Structures are given as structure tokens and as C-alpha cells.
């Protein structure tokens, strides 16, 4: 399907486990982003990528790792999940030009027990 997809949509894991959230876009957008949404905080940027093999930290990067070996994929890994990482995670993409709209995926709801 065209657009931006995330998998899994729901995930339950335990403290200390490694978890990888997947994001795939079909537009060949240069920029991709990972946000987390928490009550009272809105969406906060975790990491972003300007192109394949180029990534940079956002507002709340601690505890997360990203990679971008291909333009269309931008996985987010929690190396050792903590309860504070229970959240809804959104991936987004854009062409990256100035004032370019970001397009969001449907989100992954993660629960860390």
C-alpha cells in the first residue's frame, strides 16, 4: 500500500527486553521522524533522519537507537525497554523542503511491563 506504515500496531514487552518498531514509507521522502505521544506532552521528537545513513537526535533520544540503511525504512529500537517508554510511537516522513508537511503513520502502542 502507498503511504507510511508502522508495525507492529500493538506491542507488549517486559522491562529489559529489546524492542524494534518498524516504519516504512513508499513516497521516497528524504526525511523521516520518530515521535512519542504521552498524555500532557503532545508529540515529542525522538530521532530524525535527513537521508539514508544520516540520523540525528531529537528532543528525547535517550534509550533509543535508530538506523536508516534504506530511504524507505526507519526502524526504532529500544535496546533495554523501561516502563517510562510505555507510549504511543508515531513515525512520520516529509520531503524535507522548508515548510514541508509531515505525514504520519498510524502509530504503535507500546506497553512495557
Amino acid at each position, binding site marked *: 500500500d502507498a503511504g507510511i506504515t508502522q508495525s507492529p500496531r500493538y506491542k507488549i514487552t517486559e522491562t529489559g527486553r529489546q524492542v524494534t518498531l518498524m516504519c516504512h514509507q513508499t513516497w521516497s521522502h528524504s526525511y523521516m521522524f520518530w515521535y512519542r505521544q504521552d498524555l500532557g506532552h*503532545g*508529540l515529542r521528537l525522538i530521532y530524525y533522519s535527513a537521508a539514508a545513513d544520516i540520523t540525528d537526535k*531529537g528532543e528525547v533520544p535517550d534509550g533509543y537507537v535508530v538506523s536508516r540503511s534504506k530511504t524507505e525504512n526507519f526502524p526504532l529500537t529500544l535496546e533495554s525497554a523501561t516502563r517510562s517508554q510505555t507510549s504511543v510511537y508515531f513515525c512520520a516522513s516529509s520531503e524535507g523542503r522548508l*515548510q514541508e*508537511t509531515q*505525514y*504520519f503513520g498510524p502509530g504503535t502502542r507500546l506497553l512495557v511491563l
Partner: protein
Amino acid sequence: DQQVKQNSPSLSVQEGRISILNCDYTNSMFDYFLWYKKYPAEGPTFLISISSIKDKNEDGRFTVFLNKSAKHLSLHIVPSQPGDSAVYFCAASLMDSSYKLIFGSGTRLLVRP
């Protein structure tokens, strides 16, 4: 310290009336502002934007007003429809890094039939 604030967590209006959603920001360097709309279990979708060189932008039933001196923007929906019931996020960015959005915490709008 949140740079973009939406101080009303929720708003309820009657169908056909005007909905006014407010957003305040603290960083006077922000020069591009956006509103996103989010339905449950979906990702945010872009609604309308405004750059700092304007004080108003209209798109159908949606109008965004920007008051730079007060560091305040508002989204007006006229007339409101039940399908407008959603969470609305305002976001801000800097022109030279407009791909990095700072989001407010959101306002849940309920439009009553």
C-alpha cells in the same frame, strides 16, 4: 519547559457554532506554525499552517490567526461539525530547521450534534 502550550485540554461546542482552539508559544524565533488533527487510533494529519509573515490563513471552514506580539495563535472552525471531533495539536518550527516540529499537548474537541 514547554515551548508550545495548549492550555485547554478539552473543548465542547454545539454543531454549527464556532470552535476556537488556542495555542501559545514562548520562543519568539518560531516562524512557522501548523495545526494537526488526530482521530483515535490514527496518526495526526495536517490541517492548516501559517508563516510568521502572515496574520491569517484560511482554508474552507478552518482559519488560523497569528498574533506575534502576544505569541499566540488560534484555530477557528466555522461552522463546527460532529466529524470535527478529534484532538488538535498545534506545532511550531524555525524557518532554518522547519523539519523539526515542536508540538503542544493537544486539545480534545467534541462537537455535539
